[in-house]
């Protein structure tokens, strides 16, 4: 078996037995990235030297018996995480040459845990997109079918796992940006509860929705990565100071007696029949394993996309005001004064989707429209959140599709922004409610494309969705199938 085929927990066992060294594992990944990534375009930057130096240090720790669960494990990060001394672009021209002077908290925790960072991953510019076609560094291709999108915005993070270019990755999820690409690429991706993982050093898109989470080959790996990054951080005042449970320890408790809700509003006409079939098959698996299936209702689901595109864009228009050509980033100065410099720099630096969202958000916040759009959306958000709290009074987890269809074709939705937005219809409500959810491989279409299942948990109920996903994974073989790419 190739080193690059191993899960994090399998590789960790081999590293501890000294069957393999961290340097060997890192070299295996760097060689595979060099050979295979040109077909996928998952990486924006590969950091060979940094990675090999970290691997050597990890080998010293392993030899001294001081290894933790991530010591010597080659990981990669969405290029939205600021990394000290390593270029961080957010897939934008405006940050093309930005070298951060510090590490964000999640990155610092991974490094402290001995992880080896292979490089920075492609994404939709400023995490705005559902297909990874909005990158200044070119689209990412789906490893299962290079004519198709990997999903977005963490498309590089999902494709890198599927193409076996990293053992694990981190992404961010504002409206589905971890779960939807995980579903399209046949990997596991988890969006934690808002506040579970620090956002310090994560380039902001929509601050009340953004959350950091892992993508990996299986549920156990996701638990290991979440464990490493979760927890309160004094540098993020919205990170929550509640104890971090032992996620790995919770995995093997099974689902006997677990109450699983099926929200009727997620089984709509637009749902692809093959996705529906996968869901129904999963329901049968859970029944077999002893879970109780209950129909529930999330009555305001249909309003979620409209609500999201007002709140997220309003927050984005404010967050992206910082890109002004003064402290960092692109500057275009025609010698016509400060305001002109701002306008020219931003026009040249931002791509079309980012401009569109800044414009929509600026409009929603502008004088005369604030109450009708932004405030209205915040009130609808209350109703959507209450839907989930009501459902979780009846059930322990919710089982839904992740995306209405398997991965669509490159270019299929680029001309119609609204159609692209609607591909996030099943993931967006979770961000508005602030709770946690994951995508786990749940089958394949006739064309061989992965289909993910979404498990949604109570706020800070990550253990329960991991446990439910693990039980399903143990009962099925989908996660073992490898994307056809060499």
């Amino acid at each position, binding site marked *: 078996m190739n080193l690059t085929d191993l899960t994090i927990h399998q590789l960790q066992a081999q590293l501890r037995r000294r069957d393999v060294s961290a340097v060997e594992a890192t070299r295996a990944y760097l060689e595979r990235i060099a050979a295979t990534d040109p077909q996928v375009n998952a990486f924006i930057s590969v950091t060979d030297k940094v990675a090999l130096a970290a691997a050597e240090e990890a080998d010293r720790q392993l030899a001294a018996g001081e290894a933790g669960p991530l010591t010597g494990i080659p990981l990669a990060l969405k290029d939205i995480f600021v990394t000290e001394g390593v270029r961080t672009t957010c897939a934008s021209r405006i940050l093309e040459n930005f070298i951060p*002077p510090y590490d964000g908290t999640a990155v610092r925790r991974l490094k402290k845990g001995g992880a080896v960072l292979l490089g920075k991953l492609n994404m939709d510019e400023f995490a705005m997109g559902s297909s990874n076609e909005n990158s200044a560094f070119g689209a990412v291709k789906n490893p299962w079918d290079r004519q198709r999108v990997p999903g977005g915005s963490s498309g590089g993070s999902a494709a890198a796992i599927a193409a076996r270019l990293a053992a694990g990755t981190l992404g961010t999820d504002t409206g589905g940006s971890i779960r939807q690409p995980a579903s399209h690429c046949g990997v596991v991706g988890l969006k934690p509860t808002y506040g579970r993982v620090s956002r310090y050093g994560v380039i902001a898109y929509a601050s009340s929705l953004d959350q950091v989470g892992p993508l990996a080959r299986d549920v156990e790996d996701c638990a290991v990565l979440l464990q490493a990054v979760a927890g309160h951080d004094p540098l993020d005042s919205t990170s929550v100071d509640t104890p971090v449970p032992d996620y790995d320890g919770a995995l093997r408790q099974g689902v006997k007696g677990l109450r699983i809700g099926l929200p009727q509003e997620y089984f709509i006409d637009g749902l692809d029949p093959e996705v529906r079939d996968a869901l129904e098959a999963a329901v049968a698996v859970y029944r077999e394993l002893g879970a109780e299936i209950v129909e529930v209702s999330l009555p305001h689901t*249909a309003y979620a996309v409209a609500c999201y595109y007002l709140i997220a864009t309003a927050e984005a228009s404010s967050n992206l005001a910082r890109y002004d050509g003064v*402290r*960092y980033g692109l500057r275009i100065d025609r010698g016509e004064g400060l305001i002109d410099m701002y306008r020219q720099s931003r026009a040249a630096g931002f791509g079309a989707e980012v401009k569109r969202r*800044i*414009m929509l958000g600026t409009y929603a916040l502008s004088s005369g429209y604030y109450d009708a759009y932004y405030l209205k959306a915040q009130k609808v958000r*209350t109703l959507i959140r209450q839907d989930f709290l009501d459902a979780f009074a009846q059930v322990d987890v919710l089982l839904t599709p992740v995306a209405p269809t398997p991965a669509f074709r490159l270019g299929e939705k680029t001309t119609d922004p609204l159609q692209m937005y609607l591909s996030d219809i099943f993931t967006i409500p979770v961000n508005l409610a602030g709770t946690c959810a994951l995508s786990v491989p749940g089958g394949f279409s006739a064309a061989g494309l992965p289909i993910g299942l979404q498990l949604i948990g109570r*706020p800070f109920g990550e253990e329960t969705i991991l446990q439910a996903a693990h039980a399903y994974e143990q009962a099925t073989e989908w996660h073992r199938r490898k994307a056809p790419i060499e």
Partner: protein
Amino acid sequence: MTLEKQEMKITRHEVEHVARLARLALGEDELKALTGQLDAILGYVEQLKNLDTDGIEPTAHAVPMENAFREDGTRPPLPVELALQNAPVATDGCFRVPKVIE
């Protein structure tokens, strides 16, 4: 899309105004495309008006939180040379910007 004449949610004139607020120098093609696209998106979000939200409190933050306090202590700041290392133009330990006052 129906061909019947509908009231535009946003006019070309408003799009230009928003672009000024957002500090974006948009070209003719961009303004034209954005007017149509924003109109379609605003038409879609119009459905929120169907919901009665009288007496509903807005949610700005999904996880209930009180104020987050911390010790009022000092930490070493970012050194000046690091803070300036990404500046497009820096002079004498400062960020340099184009002339503001004529």
